[in-house]
């Protein structure tokens, strides 16, 4: 398969995740949208409240918090990091990339490989893929992978569908060279024809922000209000893509590893909403006891949802996680899956942070 890759030399050593302290409860919007509508959404999505970045805080700020927790817990020093990969769809600036700013802020050595990846809900798996490549090719022996997203900045308060499901969070993952063979499989799918299904039309080079044009509030067919500067989503099309290709990619990596669904110890599926997670899990015949769901108090945290779920579910080293599958899907439209061993991985329990903006 062309959309497929196999690695052997890297492993996930430690995973940390943080969420902002600020929460937006669905019931805060009872007057606006009606209590029965909110309760229906809560029942269907499994989300009671969403985590929201505090004023002035960016994805990079929360990633730095997650990285510092990882450094404190593992004893690794910033100067020992050999590569930094930062994955987000909400960078600090259009130019430059954010990873160099994080490198400076965390005190990571100047002699490191340093790059941003723009990817949303499949971004954790893509970040792993990039990190595995760096170690496999011999460029370095460890990679600090940071994943962060603050999409709440772009959601209009009149958009009932997105407002009540979209959360902010960040994660830090340390990958190291494995002393033993660690077969790891990746599989990918992309359909750029669907790029408008999750989309912020204005603010980039294609459609610069123009007062009176891009900031005009309009309502879509489902009654959700947004301007061209806001995040919009065609939920049904995204669901269609995710269920179809998420299932296929999970089956691809299981097949490549010669695993059956019963062999797998963990299915870590992007937490888009509870229904979608269950639907994909059902599609690959996963035992639901192996499919953690952790949206209730954070919402859909995009590319952070998988490491966040891991850190909400596990603490310390879990030797039973010998066969783990992760799958993300979302804007692009992009989907990616990975199968690896997490039996040696140290999970740091999710921390709630209320950090302050740092200016370099």
């Amino acid at each position, binding site marked *: 398969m062309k959309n497929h890759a196999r690695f052997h030399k890297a492993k996930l050593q430690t995973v940390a995740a943080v969420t902002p302290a600020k929460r937006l409860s669905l019931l805060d919007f009872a007057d606006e949208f009606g209590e029965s509508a909110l309760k229906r*959404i809560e029942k*269907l999505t499994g989300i009671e409240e969403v985590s929201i970045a505090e004023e002035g805080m960016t994805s990079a700020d929360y990633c730095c918090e997650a990285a510092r927790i990882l450094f404190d817990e593992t004893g690794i020093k910033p100067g020992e990091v050999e590569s930094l990969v930062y994955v987000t769809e909400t960078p600090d600036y259009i130019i430059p990339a954010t990873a160099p700013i994080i490198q400076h802020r965390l005190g990571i050595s100047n002699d490191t490989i340093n790059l941003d990846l723009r990817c949303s809900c499949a971004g954790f798996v893509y970040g792993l893929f990039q990190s595995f490549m760096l170690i496999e090719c011999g460029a370095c022996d460890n990679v600090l992978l940071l994943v962060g997203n603050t999409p709440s900045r772009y959601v209009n308060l009149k958009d009932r569908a997105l407002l009540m499901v979209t959360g902010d969070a960040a994660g830090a993952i340390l990958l190291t060279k494995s002393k033993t063979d660690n077969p790891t499989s990746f599989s990918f799918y992309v359909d750029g024809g669907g790029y408008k299904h999750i989309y912020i039309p204005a603010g980039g080079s294609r459609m610069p922000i123009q007062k009176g044009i891009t900031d005009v509030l309009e309502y879509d067919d489902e009654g959700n209000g947004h301007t061209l500067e806001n995040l919009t989503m065609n939920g049904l099309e995204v669901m269609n893509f995710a269920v179809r290709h998420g299932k296929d990619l999970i089956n691809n990596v299981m097949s490549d590893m010669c695993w059956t669904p019963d062999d797998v110890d963990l299915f870590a599926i992007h937490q888009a909403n509870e229904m*979608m997670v269950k639907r994909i899990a*059902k599609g690959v015949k996963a035992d639901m006891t192996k499919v953690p769901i952790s949206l209730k108090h954070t919402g859909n945290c995009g590319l952070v949802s998988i490491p966040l779920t891991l850190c909400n579910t596990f603490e310390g080293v879990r030797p039973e996680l010998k066969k783990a599958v992760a799958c993300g899907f979302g804007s692009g439209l992009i989907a990616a899956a990975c199968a690896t061993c997490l039996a040696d991985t140290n999970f740091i329990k999710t921390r709630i942070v209320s950090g302050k903006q740092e200016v370099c």
Partner: protein
Amino acid sequence: MTNREKYNNAFIESFDVQENQLENLKYQDIPSWDSVGHMGLVSELEDAFDIQFETDDIVEFNSYEKGIELLKKYDVIID
């Protein structure tokens, strides 16, 4: 409970509507039949009839009447 009753109940439960509103009801006709509500309806019907919709059928399912037609593929006849 007849298949029709099961089918109607799925709509009533999912969208908080009355039975007399169901005929000619289409996707996005009412605020509760949005994309999230649609997935809820699909789950209710799958549980009620012990089936699993193909992804294409979930997307094609855009009205009360269309659902009846699609269910025939799964040997569920709504009289």
